[in-house]
């Protein structure tokens, strides 16, 4: 019950923060985002409006490193709707480091043809309004989105998040068997749930891959999960 209280309080925190911030937010994408209430905590899984999101970045430090691309897709009624899929490459200053390019495969040429950060973040916030953000390993997306908002709007919004890594970790922690942290990687978890190999390190592909993993995890449960059991 303590856990229940803690989560409930933390969620009250999101809604309270949202309402408070709405009063001071500048007109524009952030204000529109904040004007939509988040889903209630007791929402059953099938009714949670989810946006699966993935970022590709030049590194792990949200302040020093740059956001390269954003991919996202809606998960509605336990279905991943490809019609809603969104993928954008961001035009950033400076050239890319060669070893990084091999991971995310976004070349300088592609990057130079990309869109301004402001446009992409505006698109993302519009899609995210009123939804829960789904990511695998929340730190990157949370920090980079936060940083981008600070730069663009002078404030960072509250973000209710489902992190498949944390959901899977909680399940593994409950079992008595020791596990290797590498088992929590997206590809490893997908394999565990018999999901097909996917082409990683493309933001949209990873977003879809994460959404598929969440569907698989939920399907395995005897009882459907609710938002409060999933939320970070």
């Amino acid at each position, binding site marked *: 019950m303590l856990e229940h209280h803690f989560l409930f309080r933390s969620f009250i925190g999101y809604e309270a923060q949202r309402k408070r911030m709405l009063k001071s937010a500048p007109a524009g994408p952030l204000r529109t985002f904040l004007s939509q209430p988040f889903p209630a905590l007791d929402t059953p899984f099938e009714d949670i409006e989810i946006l699966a999101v993935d970022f590709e970045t030049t590194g792990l430090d949200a302040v020093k490193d740059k956001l390269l691309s954003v991919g996202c897709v809606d998960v509605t009624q336990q279905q991943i709707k490809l019609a809603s899929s969104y993928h954008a490459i961001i035009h950033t200053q400076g050239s890319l480091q060669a070893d990084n390019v091999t991971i995310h495969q976004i070349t300088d040429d592609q990057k130079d043809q990309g869109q301004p950060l402001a446009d992409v973040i505006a698109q993302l916030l519009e899609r995210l309004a009123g939804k829960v953000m789904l990511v695998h390993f929340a730190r990157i997306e949370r920090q980079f989105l936060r940083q981008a908002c600070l730069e663009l709007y002078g404030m960072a919004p509250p973000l209710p998040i489902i992190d498949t890594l944390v959901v899977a970790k909680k399940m593994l922690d409950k079992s008595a068997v020791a596990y290797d942290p590498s088992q929590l990687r997206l590809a490893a978890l997908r394999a565990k749930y018999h999901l097909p190999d996917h082409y990683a390190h493309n*933001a949209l592909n990873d977003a879809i891959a994460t959404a598929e993993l969440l569907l698989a995890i939920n399907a395995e449960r005897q009882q459907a999960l609710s938002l409060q059991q999933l939320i970070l």
Partner: protein
Amino acid sequence: MDSALTEISDFIHALPAMELLPSQIIEQVVKEISICYVRRGQVLPPRGVSEHNLYILRKGALSYASENDELLAKYGEGDICTVFCHEPQDNIKVCAEEDTLLYSIHYPTFHKIVKHYPDVLAFFQHTAEQRLSKKMLQVNEDAIVNSSLLNSTVEKFYHSPVVSVSSSTSIKQAAILMTEENFSCLVIVDQGQPLGIVTDKDIRRRCVAQGLATEQPVSAIMTDNMTTIDIKSTAYDALLIMTQQHIHHLPVMQNTKLVGMVTVTDLMNNEGQNAVNITSVIHKAKTVAELSEISHMIPKLQIRMAKLGTTADHVGKSISAITMAFTIRLIEMAEKLLGPAPVPFAWLAAGSQARQEQFVHSDQDNALIISNDLKPEHEYWFKDLATFVCDGLAACGFVYCPGNVMATNPKWCQTQAKWHQYFTQWIHNPEPKALMHCSIFFDLSTVYGDSHLLEQVREKMLKATQLSTLFIAHLTKNALNLRPPLGFFRDFVLIQDGENKATLDIKHNGIAPIVDLARIYALSEGIACVNTIERLKLAAGTPSLTRASAANLIAAYEFLSMLRMTHQANKLQQGQQPNNYLSPKELSKLEREHLKDAFKVIKTLQDSRQSTF
């Protein structure tokens, strides 16, 4: 589209049929995908999904099971599930065998996207058919076999006006009216409202047999609470009511008004339409494979006709007409393939098909008669024709003739001159082997081509047989080898060994002797017909056969054929190969008596033939 979806696009593009689509169409298709995950053991469609969706298996496995949980098929990665594309036509249960990742696409939307690619659409319809083939084939067959009953309303074939009388009319007046109008039933009406019905049977059972005075009002013997049928009902409904209630007449109502009457005979006549339906389907078939599929309908038709009480004569004619349609269609296909015939010819049916007494699963007996202009270089054309048609008939369930009486046999693929020669030889030198051929080749009819070729041969042949008493004597002697079971006065003589132990061969011991007798009468009297009943009717009153004997033989023949047909319909319905071996257990006491009577008639006439020579 976002290049990021290329992985999914590539997967879709590699699927069968989808490979025919250009990339931009694939992109549109991918946009319509919803990904869903189905846990092992869960049933499709996923909970909450009611739209008509196409499902593509991305990972995992699905199993299809019939209503009775019989496994129909299993599908895996890259397979497409079309079961839910349309309204469910079948009770196929689709279940995830493993945890399964599905790409679901709203089918009507998909249909719109690929509408300009008929090959792709055809593929999806085709796979649907394949998966449902077993069941659907049956549905289609039933649809055609039932079409005349299901598609026609009572409106189309009821009798009008119906003869009606008031309830105070005397039984005698009613009977007189029925006789005058030649109607087997009357409707009793008061102030326009039908009260009841009176049939021949009511007059017999409720009046005459009971000794009721014929001056009594007809209402005393009528059946009240009568069942009626609405004019807009289907013929099939009418049949159901009649079968369920064991009645033969149904007054037809329009709103509350009596407008006519429909009888079981009307339905039977209508049923004959089915043969016509099937024939028209045959005519439209483009390949032998299509014909072969259509041929599955024939046993069903025979069963239905038998169950409806259609006479064996009518069934035989219907089945023969259908066989003829198959043969004609095959010849047309062959001509398309081989080019036009080099010289005039005719395709001949022999034996039961020629006599129009064919039932399902009979052997094919056929021959070719060719104009005397035939040149040696033409022979290949006819050889190819014969092979194509005989193989085609075999594909349609008409087994090759065990005695090789087929157009593929060079002996029976001959010029008119040669056929003249054959008949002359058979008539003048009636050796045992020649006589064996007689039962087949003296019953010939033209199926296709120039009918004059056969008519000229027959004309000459009949002249010869009428004059050749020696030939007729030999033919009679040969025919008398087939005798109805001796000792049938006590009990039947049954086949004593083998698979058909303790059965009666109704064809060889009952029907064939009558067919043989009819042929002998026809050949001695120069009658050109080949159908047994027609031969007997035409021979009636000639020196060969008295009218009374002809009537007896026809009755015996119809009764035996009816027994055989019912027996075969039961076999067919049980999914067995129809045969001619009747077990006495199948017969009621009355039928046994009738059977003895039939045999007595045959024996009497066989004996009289014997004494003639």
